[in-house]
């Protein structure tokens, strides 16, 4: 698996985790405090962007 493939996979999985977290929060299954939620959002967004950036550099 090339680096660009890996970055697409990592950023895709990060988005899936983000969506799952959002789903659980909106359904009330989890109740993450706003500060933590925003920190998690920022972390996953950062991971997705870094991963896609690494892939873009290789391409």
């Amino acid at each position: 698996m090339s680096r660009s493939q890996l970055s697409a996979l990592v950023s895709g999985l990060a988005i899936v985790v983000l969506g799952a977290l959002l789903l659980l929060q909106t359904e009330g299954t989890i109740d993450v405090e706003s500060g933590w939620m925003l920190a998690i959002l920022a972390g996953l967004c950062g991971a997705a962007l870094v991963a896609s950036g690494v892939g873009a550099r290789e391409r």
Partner: protein
Amino acid sequence: MAIIVTPITDDEKDTPKQDTTDPGDAPRRRLLRSRNERMLAGVAGGLADYLNLAPTLVRLGFVVAALFGGFGVLAYLVMAVIVPQDDGTGEPVRDQRPPIWAVILLGIAILVVLPGPFWGWDHGWGWIGPLWLLFLAAVAAGVYRLIAKRWPWQQDGGSRGGAPRAGAASEAGGGSGETATTEIQGDDAAGPRVARAIALVILAAAAIGAAFALALFSAWATATGSGAVIAGVVIALGVALAATAFFADARRSAPWLLAVALVMAVPAGAVAATDIEFDGAIGERDYTPATVTDIPADGYELGIGQLKVDLRGLPWADGTVVQAPTKLGVGQTVISVPTSVCVVGHADARAGELWARGESNAGVDPEFDRGDPPGRAPRLVLDSEVQIGQLVVTDEDPDKFDRDRGAFDDDDVHGGDDAGEAAEAAEACAR
């Protein structure tokens, strides 16, 4: 100058060729963005070279002009987009796209400068904004297609577009073995280049506006109880993005999938995390109850927009107590009462301002709390909630509120003489 090297045929040997290098001509002074003397896009350096001035002096001119309503910034951005870059020989780089950051900033400037009604949201036409953006994007893309012979998202040259790549050169053998230099295909006229740059800027404005609209829609859908749908779409986008790892043809769509997923997920996550919930209605609502029984038991509610409740026509006899609960998601609530009415009760917001008869509380989680005073003054018991926005309780006509200015037309009300209305309110409660 960008050139293509192509083989020459025997027929071509006999016909006069157009040599675009014109070595005998005196160099023509052109306004170009400097390649060497640059801090941002080379505009000041190029202008200095064109005017025979020191670059620092020109930069200083832009800074000073920026102090006059931002003219210098706008002029710099416009020049960065429409003035071609020097290729190092005093000629413009051919068919080069303008700096993307300048295009984006000009696009944002267009969105900011456009009048409010353009978006339609002022009048409750929430869907007009995105439609306008789509129309704008389609027109800009069409103009770009006509001028540049390719769509804005297509690569220069190659099989995808009509125009060759900037600076591309190809060498082909065969034939007589001789080569001739011919000018690259494409339009060198300043008019089409400027028009293409403008189309690109409008397209960027439309794209930024569309992203903003999508983010707003995502936040609104989450706040109105459809967060699970947004989450499902985000998950689907994530799966599609991950799948591009295994399909080379789909790799080009990965950045777009990522961008759309983030634009949807971030506002939805922020809304979900802060527990913002409101009714789905959007627009402007005016209520003018004539009697207390006209006021619904559960009060007045609106999702996004302006909620105006005019209580000045009620029979406010001494000892009258009126409860008119209001709940607003995002926007502004204006409650009007006669000057003689004492305003008590509770109001709160997640973020914004609560302005009740001259008393202002603003910021994050502002609250208004006032207990019942003694006496028989008629009173309004507030039970108001604004998630994000402003609550105004005043003795003014709510129709006097000027949305564009964010204040009442009568300057001595809000922002003009808070103390005056606060004194009147205190007098009403002391009766």
